[in-house]
């Protein structure tokens, strides 16, 4: 149990997917203009990353390891994740139109996101058990959400500020992202994993 808590803290703060591992920078810069859309994206990522861990772990350990096809993990994970997201989308549309509307366009966007693929691969590399994998996926996604919401909040304020013309938009966004990443380096050493 303490290990699970450590995994969550590590994934959220110390080894944050966006700010320390630099995975998923595309949505980090792309849909962080407003807190509202960042929330939607984060919700979708929490959903998909956790589900990915749930599904890819058995696929790896019961299918790939068994047939000694570990080298196929990338392509198999992408296949499984894409199918999974499609399935989730179909189910959501039927069962919960409200949630479907909220996550809407973000779901298909993250099928091949590197953070999502990253969590599947890292689960294997770190030799996590099934439960640990799921917790790591959840923690990683929460860290992703934290970074997204922090960053979009800053960007909303940046839009109002008097930014020098050449720096406006993505340029100042990248500078901010760098500073945010630097700030998160302060968590280094918090957890020994």
């Amino acid at each position, binding site marked *: 149990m303490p290990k699970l808590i450590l995994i969550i803290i590590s994934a959220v703060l110390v080894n944050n997917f966006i700010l320390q591992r630099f995975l998923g920078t595309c949505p980090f810069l792309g849909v962080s203009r407003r807190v509202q859309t960042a929330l939607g994206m984060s919700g979708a990522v929490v959903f998909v990353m956790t589900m990915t861990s749930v599904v890819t772990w058995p696929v790896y350990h019961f299918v790939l390891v068994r*047939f*000694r096809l570990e080298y196929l993990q990338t392509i198999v994970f992408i296949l499984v994740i894409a199918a999974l997201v499609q399935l989730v989308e*179909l189910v959501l549309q039927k069962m919960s139109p409200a949630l479907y509307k909220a996550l809407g366009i973000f779901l298909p966007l993250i099928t091949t996101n590197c953070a999502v693929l990253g969590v599947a691969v890292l689960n294997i590399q770190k030799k996590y058990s099934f439960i640990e994998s799921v917790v790591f996926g959840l923690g990683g996604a929460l860290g992703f959400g934290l970074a997204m919401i922090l960053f979009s909040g800053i960007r909303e304020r940046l839009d109002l500020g008097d930014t020098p013309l050449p720096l406006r938009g993505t340029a100042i966004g990248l500078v901010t992202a760098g500073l945010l990443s630097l700030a998160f380096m302060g968590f280094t050493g918090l957890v020994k994993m």
Partner: protein
Amino acid sequence: MLTAVVTLAALGLVAAFGLAMAARIFAVETDPRIQLVEEALPGANCGACGYPGCSGLAKAIVEGAVGIGNCPAGGENVAHTIAKIMGVTYSGGSERMAAIVLCGGSDQVARKKFMYNGVRDCASAAMIFGGDKYCRYGCLGLGTCAGICPFGAIRMLPGGLAEVDPAKCTGCGKCVDSCPKKIIKMVPAKRTVHILCSSHDKGAAARKACDNACIACGKCVKAAPPGAITIDNFLAVVDYGAEIPEDVAGECPMNTIVVRKEPSGCESCAAAAAGGGAV
């Protein structure tokens, strides 16, 4: 090798089968009219209606969120088709608008400061000393608006000016936003008298920069009905709400005022329009 192929294929098949079943089980019934309305819309996804694309507007129309005449690009014809699909009558909408580029400074009449050799894009050109023309308000002639027009209504004249064909223009307004000089305006398509200049420079300076510039002499103001043309900051401006007789154009000493009928310029379009054929 064989195991790899078979395993991947099997995984793919399982996923495909699962998805096919899910699509069956979780199929959501949508209003068939959404499809029909979407087909009736122009399909250019220009976004002038404020929705992400034609499918977004189609959904909003069928759900009753907006009226049937809400496609600015489609205009009357599309509204009538949608009215038929929706089983309502179309009572007519707002006036049809068309874009116009308010600059007459072709390469023959407008003088240049330097040779621009950079990226063939107006926004880039405008960043270097405001463009290569002496006139700060002149059309840069690199065709950014023509490139962005989803309906092919803007063509580049040989003299380095953009011209909008009011017959093809649907009034979506994308070119207005794309122009770094902000000299494209939306005007009622039925108006024919235009002042092709946007220069707010004083008369002498404007004349120095361009032979077709408005020098704010005020002749057209006197010739036109009261209030139909006004001088605003050294530039004569047409009030498009008012009817202006076409002979006002002859009064202009700088040939800035033009009469542009629908369809403009191109002869084949005019012939097609006269023959009643589709353009």
